[in-house]
């Protein structure tokens, strides 16, 4: 079964690379470039996995995660957070807010593929 992934990442080249990698791996990837409207998009699509950048324009990734966890409809949805090295405090906050997995930039494509498989097949 094709895993449906919603990617919320504001860096266009990173977004493009992730879309390419996961599409080649059989995922159906939809991408958003900022946090505004992300919650509506999640509720409308109910994907198998959300990949969420921590630092987003508009609404931060942390706020989106908190709102997803507060909503019974989306509280169990797997969410992978994209963080950069040096965002230790933000990462701790995301851990407390209920992130399912972290991927630290720069990441290897193999790690990304493996994590997505684990999160969508579990």
């Amino acid at each position: 079964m094709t895993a449906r992934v919603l990617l919320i990442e504001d860096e266009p080249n990173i977004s493009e690379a992730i879309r390419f990698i996961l599409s080649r791996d059989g995922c159906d990837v939809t991408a958003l470039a900022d946090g505004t409207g992300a919650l509506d998009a999640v509720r409308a699509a109910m994907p198998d996995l959300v990949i969420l950048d921590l630092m987003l324009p508009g609404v931060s990734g942390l706020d989106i995660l908190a709102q997803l966890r507060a909503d019974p409809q989306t509280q169990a949805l797997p969410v992978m957070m994209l963080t950069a090295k040096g965002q230790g405090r933000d990462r701790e906050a995301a851990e407390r807010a209920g992130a399912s997995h972290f991927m630290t930039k720069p990441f290897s494509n193999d790690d990304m593929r493996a994590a997505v498989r684990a999160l969508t097949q579990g």
Partner: protein
Amino acid sequence: MPNSQPNLPASLTGSLIRERRLALGLRQGDVAQAVGISASYLNLIEHNRRRVGAEVLARLAGVLGTETAILSEGAGGALIDDLRAAASTAPGIQPELDRIEDFAGRFPGWAAVLAAQHHRAAQLERAVGALNDRLTHDPHLSASLHEVLSALASVRSTAAILADTEDIEPDWRERFHQNLHQDSERLAAGAEALVAYLDGSDTAVDTGLAAPQEEVESWLAARGWQLAELEQPEGLAQLLAEVAGLASAAARSLAADFLRQAAAEAQLLPDTALRAALARGEDDPAVLAQRTGLSVLAVMRRIALLPGSVAGLVICDASGTLLFRKPVDGFALPRFGAACPLWPLFAALARPMLPLVERVEPAGRAARVFRTLSICETRLPQGFAGPELREAAMLILPDDAPRAAGAVLALGSSCRICPRGRCPARREPSILAEAGAAAGVQ
């Protein structure tokens, strides 16, 4: 009877008397005779086995050519406090605290060395703390690092795609090559900015900090920007003693001036009065200034320093140099280099005593709107014959009104880390890609 006045601690005083006598090369018997006590009694005093009365102590001080206070306290009070502080910072070691006075009295030189080492360690810990704080919060460093890591993440993934995907379509290959080119340029610019930043950090060799002002602000930040002690009777003295431990002399001087000014302002508008006024909705600094006799700028400082205050504050002089920076979440203040020329602070600087209220939106990923109140005040410290000095302040307050509730001025922190590409006030190119523009947010 001399020993019927047990009003002076025996232990350290006796050792100090003995030390002073030996330093002068005087015999115990001669000193005892001159003071009018027996040699055996002086011997007991010197070995801290008898307390010494005030009268005898005064005579001893006279014979030994020193002050009573030096014999009764010496450097002892402060020295013993320092030794206790040093003892408390040695985990796993249990020094003989009950013999601390004896130690200080018998080995004053070694005790002073230990106290000095303790002070130095505390200074270095503060410097490390400030550097750590800078690494965590400095907007220049954080923006430069984020830029480098983002570009690097893209380069790594894209390069791996090109290397590992044998059957990649020509259109995709072309696109990824372009992305690689863009990101390599971005990476170079980000790395350049990081190098410039780190080069600039070499200047403060003694403290590891870039400027005395930064050291003072680090100290204030470590206290949560609160100086509630100023309203206690000994509060100013306590805080002055605290800033005496700052690493550089310039920082100590700046901090002491700042504290004296803050204490004087707190007297005219204490925390409780200010808090009560704010609770009543009386939050206009100009009105509070009129009521208290403080300047508007001083009231802004009181609001920013009120315990628990979420208000940020920047103050600059006539050259636009930032003299004070209390940051606020979502509104990055530059550590060095000039600030954004669009700040209302600078508009206020050009028109003294005209208040300026402006809603602003700093560039950033988590875009937030703030209400700013700015004003410029002038002084003539040397009268008509001297120069006119100006200071402008901008109070930065969170704005909960809906974004559409009026005009919002889009501004930044400093050109070098501002992503607003089409800004008419731009002085120099930014190290940041226009991520906001690419995402449809500006």
